């Protein structure tokens, strides 16, 4: 049995925040789980993918976040407890159904995990999704630890069913990817057979119905506000004339800081875990008789603005501060030392700051940026495309491992916004500059949101080449399946959708399918595509070697070596390909046999044919 399915309540385990959320959903009797993976949320769906076959829980990796939320909405409308997971920018994709689902509401409890990424560890922006609460009217719960992540998941389901509204569980990377002791609770048996009750005047949002449902949402909002004001998730630690209002992981930093500063009996802390609707009354209660209050929250001044409004409404003249040049930034994540420092500064407390050792006179450490793996097929495709299409062509890229192609010498990325933007931005750039533009997109991203852009390219006769880097998996987020994957080797029976069929189906006529390890054939295909006026698609097919190794299908190929008697040090292998398996020793290019996977691409790049497979027994 998967350990997270254990019926034994009271046991304590060390859990990643994301696994604590899984356990919470299981305890709450979740019956239906949908997602699109994305760091820092991915371990939640990946764990359901593993454990769902042992249970009656339905799980799917959906095509994108909008689809995930809509599939989930259908299940929740049929009375099933439903969990939908995504990263913060995924909520943008799902925002369209989200806004109206708030009107229509749910029957079974629905929890939407929204994982924010302050500091952009693995994201294109650090937007603060608490504003989605305001925008949609939906309640938001924010845990401060793995234990709370589990407990709040259970509470979020109950709250959702009580209000008949989806509830947003908002986390940040430091909660999703923190690990801490979690005590298990009892399991609730999931109700897995749904029933849809027809009631079109409440569920079909034509304008007349929408007008009524907006009123319904505002009434639910008032009810949620009362619950937030009374919620035990919004609690006060300590007492004193000074106050701190905080949320999420900042609560941990604040608590440690007050202990370090010896301020536990002078500063009261209001931790907001039920942060939308904003519990104005509870906050006003806290503000009364306070001299000054500091708001400690990462990213935007969501709470600070609300706290100031609450004070104004109650006629309280208490000083309130948060974001400012002197105190907290709207940028990046916080850390315990910084929070301690700002608390001391704001309340005028002297303390001994930590003294880092002197490092100015230490040698500079060379950078170690993430890189495409040895033998990564993306590298070969980038090499071939750039060799033919040249340095001047503009290369919009997309979200995935291949975004790492931005680094020299591949330099195969010129523009990026979000999932699916490669093809559509290529259309605009091509039309504006009058040149064929080449977009790169991965297979999972193609299904996520590349198809609609491609339809636009065909219909409006744009002059673009879309290179689909088809490595048969969602590599960057941890090798999840997607609609183009054959899932039989994994023991699943999803229908596989071929990218070539989709591309031809939407009307692309110039279609090329290549194996990128064959440089000559790939370059011939790029040549033909670049000569074609209009939409071309090149599908570059080679399985991700990391994934192949994981599922045991990576072929055993001989590794390569440099024949030093032939090598004339052109260094095309290093200067153009730069596979991490290369290294230089005494001015000679060498290949690390532990890293080489025998893809044979460098052997085709060397003008002296000096790179050859190591002979057996050599």
């Amino acid at each position: 049995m998967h350990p997270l399915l254990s019926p034994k309540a009271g046991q304590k385990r060390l859990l990643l925040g994301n696994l604590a959320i899984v356990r919470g959903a299981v305890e709450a009797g979740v019956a239906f789980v949908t997602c699109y993976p994305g760091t820092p949320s991915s371990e939640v769906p990946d764990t359901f993918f593993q454990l769902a076959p042992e249970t009656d829980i339905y799980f799917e990796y959906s095509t994108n976040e909008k689809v995930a939320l809509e599939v989930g909405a259908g299940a929740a409308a049929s009375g099933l407890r439903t969990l939908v997971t995504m990263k913060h920018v995924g909520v943008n994709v799902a925002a369209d159904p989200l806004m109206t689902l708030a009107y229509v509401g749910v029957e079974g409890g629905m929890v939407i995990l929204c994982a924010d990424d302050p500091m952009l560890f693995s994201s294109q922006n650090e937007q603060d999704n608490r504003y989605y609460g305001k925008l949609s009217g939906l309640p938001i719960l924010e845990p401060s630890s793995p234990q709370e992540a589990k407990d709040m998941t259970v509470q979020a389901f109950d709250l959702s069913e009580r209000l008949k509204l989806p509830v947003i569980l908002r986390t940040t990377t430091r909660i999703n990817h923190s690990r801490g002791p979690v005590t298990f609770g009892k399991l609730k048996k999931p109700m897995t057979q749904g029933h849809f009750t027809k009631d079109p005047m409440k569920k079909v949002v034509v304008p007349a119905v929408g007008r009524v449902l907006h009123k319904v949402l505002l009434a639910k909002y008032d009810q949620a506000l009362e619950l937030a004001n009374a919620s035990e998730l919004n609690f006060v630690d300590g007492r004193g004339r000074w106050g701190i209002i905080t949320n999420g992981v900042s609560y941990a930093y604040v608590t440690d800081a007050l202990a370090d500063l010896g301020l536990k009996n002078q500063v009261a802390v209001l931790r907001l875990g039920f942060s939308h609707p904003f519990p104005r009354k509870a906050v006003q209660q806290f503000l009364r008789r306070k001299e000054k209050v500091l708001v400690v929250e990462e990213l935007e001044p969501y709470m600070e603005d609300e706290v100031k409004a609450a004070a104004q409404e109650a006629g309280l003249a208490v000083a309130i501060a948060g974001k400012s040049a002197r105190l907290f930034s709207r940028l990046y994540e916080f850390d315990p030392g910084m929070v301690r420092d700002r608390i001391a500064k704001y309340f005028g407390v002297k303390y001994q700051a930590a003294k880092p050792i002197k490092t100015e006179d230490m040698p500079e450490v060379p950078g170690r940026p993430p890189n495409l793996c040895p033998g990564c097929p993306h590298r070969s495709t980038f090499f071939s495309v750039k060799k033919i299409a040249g340095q001047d062509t503009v290369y919009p890229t997309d979200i995935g491992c291949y975004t790492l192609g931005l680094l020299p010498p591949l330099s195969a990325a010129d523009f990026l916004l979000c999932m699916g933007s490669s093809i559509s931005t290529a259309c605009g750039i091509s039309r504006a500059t009058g040149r064929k533009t080449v977009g790169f997109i991965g297979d999972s991203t193609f299904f996520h949101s590349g198809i609609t852009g491609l339809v636009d390219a065909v219909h409006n006769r744009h002059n673009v080449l879309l290179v689909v880097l088809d490595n048969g998996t969602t590599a960057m987020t941890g090798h999840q399946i997607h609609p183009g994957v054959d899932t039989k080797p994994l023991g699943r029976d999803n229908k596989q959708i071929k990218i070539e069929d989709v591309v031809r189906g939407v009307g692309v006529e110039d279609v090329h399918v290549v194996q990128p390890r064959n440089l000559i054939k790939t370059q011939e295909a790029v040549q033909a595509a670049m000569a074609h006026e209009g939409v071309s698609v090149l599908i570059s097919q080679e399985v991700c070697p990391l994934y192949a190794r994981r599922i045991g299908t990576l072929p055993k190929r001989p590794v390569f070596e440099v024949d030093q008697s032939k090598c004339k040090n052109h260094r095309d292998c290093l200067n153009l390909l730069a596979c991490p398996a290369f290294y230089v020793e005494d001015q000679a290019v060498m290949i690390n046999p532990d890293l080489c996977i025998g893809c044979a691409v460098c052997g085709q790049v060397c003008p002296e044919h000096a790179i050859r497979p190591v002979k057996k027994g050599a």
Partner: protein
Amino acid sequence: MTAMRIHITGVGGQGTLLATSLIGEAALLAGVNVNVSEVHGMAQRGGVVESAVTLGDLMSNIVSDGEADVLLGFEPSETLRAASKCSRNTTVITNSHPQAPFTVAIGRGTYPDLASALDKMAGRVEKLISIDADAEAHKAGTILSLNMVLLGALAKHAALPVEPKHLKKAIRDNTKAAFLKVNLKAFDLGYAT
């Protein structure tokens, strides 16, 4: 001691995250409060991997500059990169075996003069223990046991509120049978440094 902050740094593929979570598991076994933080995702593709463990009377799970009680470095240049986490009270335990970043490996960057840099660092912290963990791991049977060697060294040289027996139990509970013997041997070799 009421609290201990451990900062861990290394290179993707060295097993830093497994080592990090094993410290957490051992703390749970020892009944010591523990918080762990990790970075997953894009940052792992051959790049620097940082994690942290706090033990005892703390809620935070990351370590600020100058606040590491222990810095555990899986690669010497990464130990240097994380030097700002240290104060004069820090115990530094580092692997001395370099793993050059790609830019250096292909001759486009300079790897720092480690011996003199680590000497400088040693003079500024409580103590600095440098071991060739790669060599010890090979002695144990495989380079993949590098993380166990460093766990052993941590148990030996840092005043952990967790005993070696707890760490060994955590290793036993979380290692596939085929690797267990090697992993325990690697831990012992690290502990013997």
